[in-house]
């Protein structure tokens, strides 16, 4: 059942592309490829765009989403396996080619892309249909073969049986492919009560688990950085130390003198040193002498930038939500409380640093191996640089060692830089552009720094008015995802939909501009909006003399799914353990609902440790409960990492942090015990990759607030409360 098992039979990626090309009519196509002597050739047959059945009885599901740890290779495959009536041991996965027409993401306006926790949500009905359609084609083929009516054919665990005869799907696929696929309205789906895979628990004894586990445990999984054809040259790019700087002049004599360095080329974004191997490229880059033109560069330090952001907050911004009298209601009886919440720049820092390999034949073709999160965008960027057309540029999407948003770049920075280098070398060898960890930490595409000015008026034990005003750089402006005139939802999501029944609410935003590049970072706007909303809610509730959980319950009556996860998490957490302090937060993001309860030990010296997080999640129908749990566990770790210790600060416009010793991700010693509870649901499935992240920060801050009475408005929290 492993990917490794298929390796012998797997066609080359180019072959797969070719097979898709032949199958463009929408019908299936049979292709024969070489197999081992023992097994003979294997015939691979397309049954629609998403399903391929091999004569070896394997069923491969094409992923239009990249697998970078979130589990789509199992989740999406599970949906097909269920409706096609497979045996789990048959199931395989493969990334689809770059093709918006077949593999576009409806949640991205039809462009291919992985993000926004949309994979299961956007594929659920489509892959059910793909599986059901293939199953009916196989059933028809079996009926013809057995000489019986299709209604007599039973489809069970990858076999068709009727009247004492049976055939495997692999034996039926070629004939099935000749049939016309059933119309969408004629498809029938399993009742949930009959599910074999959907919603079922991992079962190692039966081999039912993540499909990417065996190869990852045995180091057979192939990532872009592992792709290294003979003769590959490695390139490292020297980028401007300050955001917005340009190359003024280069002295590359010392770099070229390094043994192994073959070329030094200037491209739009800096100076690339190309060498026979990484070590030579690194020594070469270290030896470059570049003078930078900083006339258009950011030159401020973080403190000055925060001060500038706060100046902007003195005036009203673009309105994002108004209830009752809005901000005007901040004036009135009772007490007004306010706090400025400061959030720093954050780096995604996936464990596999960015890289891709470009094999370029001038005027003819290019093949790009990359952990591509937006394959058709990357393809378009390569076409623009290399003067090729999309049919000449093959994007081979590899497994990626994490992303957290970093590999989804509307400007395709990685592929664009690599293609420019390949072009400068005129295709003389495959070129692997690598980012060191320092490049990763210091080169931007950060979660934007921002300030939330939170204000509330408390009167007679109630929050009578609430205001949340943000100053932030826009992530979406200038991308295809934000049509002109549309509010920048990525800056206000989680603020403007505050669910609490407060009579007067005002949410507004100032979009500020500076040369630092920013990008969506796992859970995007919710990384800061949830913290500001949920922590300030506790501050306000306590000021009103109310228990924060009880007040949430009272104000969430119109939001039953938020209320349900809140109640479940609180119930499962049980009484507060002796000597610990507790905080709770609940948040809705990416169409899912998550509540988290944090139990924290606070020591006399102010140091603290998050010991346990209890999480309740409602993500609609659950495809794979263990992957839901793993995404909550990981999301909690990722969110906690950010609020405890992550930040990029600028000094005179240049990042201060350089690597994992000063940009410090969470380590095992800081990881709490995590318990995850899933709300049973019959609602359509929604995302789990991101929604686990937002609540943990405010839950921890609320725990500290409960013990100290302080507001924790400056992030990261650091070592002491």
């Amino acid at each position, binding site marked *: 059942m492993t990917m490794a098992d298929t390796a012998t039979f797997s066609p080359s990626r180019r072959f797969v592309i070719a097979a898709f090309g032949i199958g463009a009519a929408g019908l299936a196509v049979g292709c024969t490829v070489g197999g081992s002597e023992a097994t003979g050739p294997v015939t691979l047959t397309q049954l629609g765009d998403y399903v391929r059945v091999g004569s070896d009885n394997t069923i491969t599901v094409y992923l239009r989403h990249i697998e970078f740890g979130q589990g789509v290779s199992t989740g999406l495959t599970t949906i097909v396996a269920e409706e096609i009536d497979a045996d789990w041991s048959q199931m395989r996965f493969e990334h689809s080619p770059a093709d918006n027409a077949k593999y576009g993401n409806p949640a991205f306006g039809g462009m291919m892309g992985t993000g926004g926790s949309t994979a299961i949500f956007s594929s659920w009905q489509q892959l059910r249909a793909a599986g059901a359609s293939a199953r009916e084609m196989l059933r028809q083929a079996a009926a013809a073969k057995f000489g019986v009516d299709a209604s007599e054919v039973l489809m069970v665990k990858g076999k068709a049986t009727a009247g004492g005869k049976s055939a495997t799907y692999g034996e039926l696929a070629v004939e099935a492919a000749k049939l016309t696929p059933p119309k969408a309205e004629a498809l029938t789906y399993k009742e949930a009560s009959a599910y074999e895979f959907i919603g079922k628990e991992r079962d190692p004894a039966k081999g039912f*688990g993540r499909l990417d586990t065996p190869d990852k445990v045995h180091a057979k999984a192939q990532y872009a950085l592992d792709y290294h054809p003979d003769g590959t040259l490695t390139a490292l790019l020297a980028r401007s130390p300050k955001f917005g700087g340009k190359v003024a002049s280069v002295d590359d004599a010392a770099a070229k003198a390094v043994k192994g360095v073959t070329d030094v080329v200037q491209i739009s974004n800096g100076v690339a040193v190309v060498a026979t191997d990484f070590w030579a490229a690194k020594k070469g880059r270290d030896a470059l002498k570049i003078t930078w033109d900083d006339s258009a560069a950011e030159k401020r330090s973080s403190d000055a930038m925060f001060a500038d952001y706060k100046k902007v907050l003195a005036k009203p911004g673009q309105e994002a939500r108004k209830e009752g009298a809005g901000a005007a209601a901040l004036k009135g009886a009772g007490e007004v409380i306010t706090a400025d919440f400061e959030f720093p720049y954050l780096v995604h820092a996936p464990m596999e640093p960015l890289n891709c390999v470009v094999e370029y034949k001038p005027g003819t073709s290019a093949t790009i191996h990359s952990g591509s999160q937006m394959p058709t965008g990357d393809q378009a960027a390569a076409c623009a640089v290399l003067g090729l057309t999309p049919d000449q540029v093959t994007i081979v999407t590899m497994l990626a060692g994490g992303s957290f948003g970093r590999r989804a770049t509307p400007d395709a920075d990685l592929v664009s830089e690599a293609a420019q280098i390949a072009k400068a070398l005129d295709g003389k060898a495959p070129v692997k552009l690598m980012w060191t960890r320092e490049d990763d930490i210091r080169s931007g595409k950060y979660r934007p720094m921002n300030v939330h000015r939170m204000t509330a008026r408390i009167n007679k034990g109630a929050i009578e008015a609430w205001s949340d005003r943000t100053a932030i750089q826009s992530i979406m402006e200038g991308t295809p995802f934000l049509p002109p005139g549309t509010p920048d939802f990525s800056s206000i999501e989680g603020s403007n939909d505050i669910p609490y029944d407060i009579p007067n609410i005002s949410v507004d935003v100032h979009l500020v501009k500076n040369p630092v590049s920013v990008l969506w970072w796992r859970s995007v706007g919710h990384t800061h909006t949830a913290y500001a909303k949920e922590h300030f809610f506790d501050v306000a509730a306590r000021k009103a003399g109310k228990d924060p959980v009880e007040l949430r319950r009272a104000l969430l009556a119109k939001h039953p799914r938020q209320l349900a996860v809140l109640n479940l998490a609180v119930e499962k957490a049980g009484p507060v353990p002796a000597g610990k302090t507790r905080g709770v937060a609940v948040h809705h993001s990416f169409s899912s609902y998550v509540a988290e309860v944090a139990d924290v030990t606070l020591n006399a010296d102010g140091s603290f440790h998050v010991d346990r997080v209890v999480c309740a999640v409602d993500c609609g129908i659950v495809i794979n409960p263990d992957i839901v749990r793993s995404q909550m566990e990981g999301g909690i770790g990722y969110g906690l990492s950010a609020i405890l210790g992550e930040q990029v600060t600028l000094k005179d416009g240049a990042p201060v942090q350089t690597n994992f010793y000063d940009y410090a991700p969470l380590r095992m010693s800081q990881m709490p015990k995590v318990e995850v509870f899933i709300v049973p649901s019959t609602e359509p499935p929604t995302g789990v990759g991101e929604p686990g992240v937002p609540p943990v920060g405010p839950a921890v801050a609320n725990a500290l607030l409960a013990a100290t009475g302080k507001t924790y408005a400056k992030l990261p929290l650091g070592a002491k409360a």
Partner: protein
Amino acid sequence: MKLTINGKDQEYTGEEDRPLLWYLREDLKMTGTKFGCGVAACGACTVLVDGQPTRACVTPAASLEGKKITTIEGLDTPAGQAVQKAWAELDVVQCGWCQSGQMLAATALLTATPKPSEQQITDGMTSNICRCATYHRIRGAVARASEIMG
């Protein structure tokens, strides 16, 4: 210069300061050992040198003459096998990039301490970063591997 990698002799003729990581990945095409930080801060490149967890990204290949080097591709000791089995059983992996290093670190831990306490597991594993934060399952898998070893 002769290096012994997973029990097999290799002749190293490269630069004196070139880290073992790049010799493994680029020359020997043994890509199971991963690049994460280049400064011995994350543990993605962990290999065993005479059984001791060692950061291949900062260890010159030329410094390892006469030493026994074990990578994920050669993890065939009882502890190593138990670790891989436990990792699979618990579906520890997410993106997977750091997991070779995690499993090598766990193997070294369990070889020295076959029945580790919770604190010993944390102490033995905390220098390996997992950005997917699979720590919760790594803890469980180290304990499970200890059980499998008997």
